[in-house]
Every structure is written in C-alpha cells, then in structure tokens.
C-alpha cells in the first residue's frame, strides 16, 4: 500500500532523514516511536508531501508521489492526516470543518456531505456538537472532530502525528479509543506516538526511529519484549 525507498530529507545543511526504507501493508497499524528530534514528524509529513523529500521515493498504491507532484491534490485525498495541534478551522462550525473538503474537492452535493459528516461525528462519539465552533470544544473533542474531518475524504491510510500529546491526561483515552476502533475496522494507520500502551496494544508493527533512520522494527512483542539494539533499550527504559 505504501512503499518508502531510501527517503532522505534535509533542511538546509541539517539532514533529518537519512535513508528510510519500509513498506506498509493494507490494514496494517504501524506505530512510530523515537526520541524528540529523531525525524518522526518529518517522515510522516513526507508521506503526504507536506515536506518534499530531498531524495528517494514514496509509492502509494504503486504510484510515485515524487513523480506525480502535479497530481498531489488528488493523491492527498487518499492520505488523511491528524495533527498534534488539531488544526481545526476556527471560523467554521464542526460540520463545516468536516464538509469543506468533500464539497470543494470531491464535489459531493452539500446535503450528502452533511449527512456523511453527521454520521462521522456520531462515529467519533460526538452527537450534539454539529453547529458549534471549535473554540467551544475540549481538546479531546477537537481531536475527534479532526479525525472525522480526515475520514470524510474516505482516505485509504490515516497518518497521526502525536494525536494525544496536546491533550490533558483525562482526554487521552477518548481519542485513543476512537483510533483503536478505526484500527479494528481495518484502517491502514501510521501513528507517531509516545503512548507506548497504545502502540503495544493496537500496533501491528513498531518502528523505532533514531537520528533519521529506522534503527529497529518489529512486532510489539519483539520490540518491547526483546529489543536488539542498545539505543532501543536505552529509549524504552526511559519511556516505559
């Protein structure tokens, strides 16, 4: 479904990604962990070309993103993204946030988009917030709206960049529950997270990133239970 080949990314002289190779299968939940500054966000953002790779290839369904930069708006529809800071549109109601892209990009009739948006809101557990503005929501509610907004484009894969890091502890659970539900429904997901409990429980595969490379990867049992690399062990001993 996604194939990454020798992906490099530099900001000026700073090389942040130093050759990433991995493949993500349909329906797989991949959790990316690693220390701050190791390049997790940059890797994720390359997957929908929010950052342009300096070198290397990314294929989605066999189509090279780098070669089809002109088609990027169409390719991005296949890839939903959820941000740490939610990034809801503050001048639009919750429903308008969710309907914007389906109506303007996919040209779905407004009524149909509205019905779908309401359905998605129910799915993420919000029932009476349709016409509310984002500023009136709690952090957990905002993030669930953001997930619904991304799902409204029917993406084939969802990218999550530390979706619970900006939340008060009591709200982390509600967002993780929605993500877990998505995973159970078979959504392909790439999740950058510091929630090791979630990674262990929901992840099919864990990638440990260190200084711009995937230093170690494996099932949660392998990676958490029996890490091979010294640096992986050091990282895990700090966060577990």
């Amino acid at each position, binding site marked *: 479904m996604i194939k990454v080949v020798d992906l490099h990314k530099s900001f000026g002289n700073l090389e942040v990604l130093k050759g990433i190779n991995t493949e993500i299968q349909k329906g797989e939940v991949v959790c990316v962990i690693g220390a701050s500054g190791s390049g997790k966000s940059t890797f994720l953002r390359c997957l929908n070309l929010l950052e342009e790779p300096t070198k290397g290839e990314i294929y989605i369904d066999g189509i090279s993103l780098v070669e089809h930069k002109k088609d990027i708006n169409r390719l991005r529809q296949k890839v939903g993204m959820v941000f740490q800071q939610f990034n809801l549109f503050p001048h639009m109601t919750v429903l308008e946030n969710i309907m914007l892209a389906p109506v303007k990009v996919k040209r779905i009739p407004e009524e149909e988009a509205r019905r779908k948006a309401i359905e998605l809101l129910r799915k993420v557990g919000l029932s009476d917030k349709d016409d509310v503005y984002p500023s009136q929501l709690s952090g957990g509610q905002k993030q669930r709206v953001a997930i619904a907004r991304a799902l409204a*484009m029917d993406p084939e894969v969802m990218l999550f960049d530390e979706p619970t890091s900006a939340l008060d502890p009591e709200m982390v659970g509600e967002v993780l529950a929605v993500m877990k539900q998505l995973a159970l429904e078979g959504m392909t997901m790439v999740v950058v997270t510091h929630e090791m409990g979630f990674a262990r429980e929901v992840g099919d595969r864990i990638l440990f990133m260190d200084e711009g490379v995937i230093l170690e990867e494996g099932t949660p049992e392998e990676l958490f239970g029996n890490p091979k690399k010294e640096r992986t062990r050091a990282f895990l001993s700090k966060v577990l």
Partner: protein
Amino acid sequence: MLEGIFRILSDAIYFNLIKEDRYMLFIDGLKVTIQLTVFAAIIGIIIGLVMAIAKLTNNKILNRIATIYTDVIRGTPSVVQLIVIYYAILGSSQLPKLLVASLAFGINSGAYVTELIRAGILAVDKGQMEAARSLGLSYAQAMRYVIVPQAIKNILPALVSEFIMLLKETAVAGYIALDDLTRAGNIVRGRTFDPYTPFILVALIYLYITSMLTAFMGRLERRLRQID
C-alpha cells in the same frame, strides 16, 4: 467681558464662514478631500492585494518587484511622491488633477496596504494551510476558504486605521494646487488675515471624520472578535 468674547466669536464666524459665502469653500474642499481619500483608498486596496500576492508567492521576480515598490514608497515622503507623480503624469497628459492626486496617494497607500495584507495572512497559523492541503485542497482553495477568511479579521481593523492616516496625508494635496479642505483653510486665511479660525475649523472637520472612522473601527474589531 462675556459680551467681548461673544463679539470676537461672532466676528470670526461672520468673516470666515458667512461673508461671501465662504463656508462653501470649506464644503467644496471637504468634498475634494473625501473624493480623494475614497479614490486613493480603492486604488490602494487593489495595488495592495496584487503586491501582497506578489510578495507571498514563490516567484523571485515578483517578490523583488513588490519589495522594491514597498521599500521605495515607505522610504520616501508622500509629498515628494505626489509632486514627482504629478509632474511625471501631467507633463504628458491632460488628466484631471483630482485623478492624478488619487493615483499618487493610492500608490502611496498601496505600499502600506501591501504590508497589512501580507502580515494578516502570515499571522494565520501555519497549521491551517497544512490541514487544508492535507485534505486535498489546492493552494488557491486553501487560501480562499481557510486562510483569507481568517486573515480578514486581522486585516480589516488595520485597514481602517490606514485610511485614517490616508485622509490626513491628503492634506498636502495643496502642493499641486488641488483645492482640498486644508487648502480651503489657506484660501480663507488669505482673505480674512485671521490665522487661527480657518485652521481651527479645518482641524475640527478632520477630527470629526477621523473620530467617526475610529469609532467604526472599534465596532468592527468587537464584531470580528465575537465571531471567534
């Protein structure tokens, strides 16, 4: 004593406003000032929009042109710009003076409007553009539906304040012999030899208009803040 003050005042009003219908000079001058400000504001907004876009795109040449424009305009006095443009244009055409002056002040105001619009757009959180693009919106769609509606909240109040500045700046239009409000005061002074009253009147008229605009700006700001 009181009678003396009353006498001075009524004389001042008689000679500066009533005699020979001199109040008409102020009214006509006010009309010119308002027309000049409105035309210049419209020209300034159009130039400002175009130049702000030129500054925000990735095109090096457009960036350069827009930067030179704003640097030159903001780095030189508006009176000098007015005179240069007046002679440059009027030397070769028969355009009405009001139009030339509007163009000159419009070009001047445009530089400040450019910066207002640019700053207003840059003040919108970067995550907004990223979220919009990640949903598949094109750059233009993201601008139109997500960025600009939020930027307008930053821009509009500042724009009103720019036009208050513009209104006051147009007081130098007399340099190219345009009979605006300030020049009306000058003409009346020349006839009455009273240096105070005509300009106090002129000042009061400017003050009245600017305070109305300021009040409008305040209301606008409160309105816009409510939407959040």
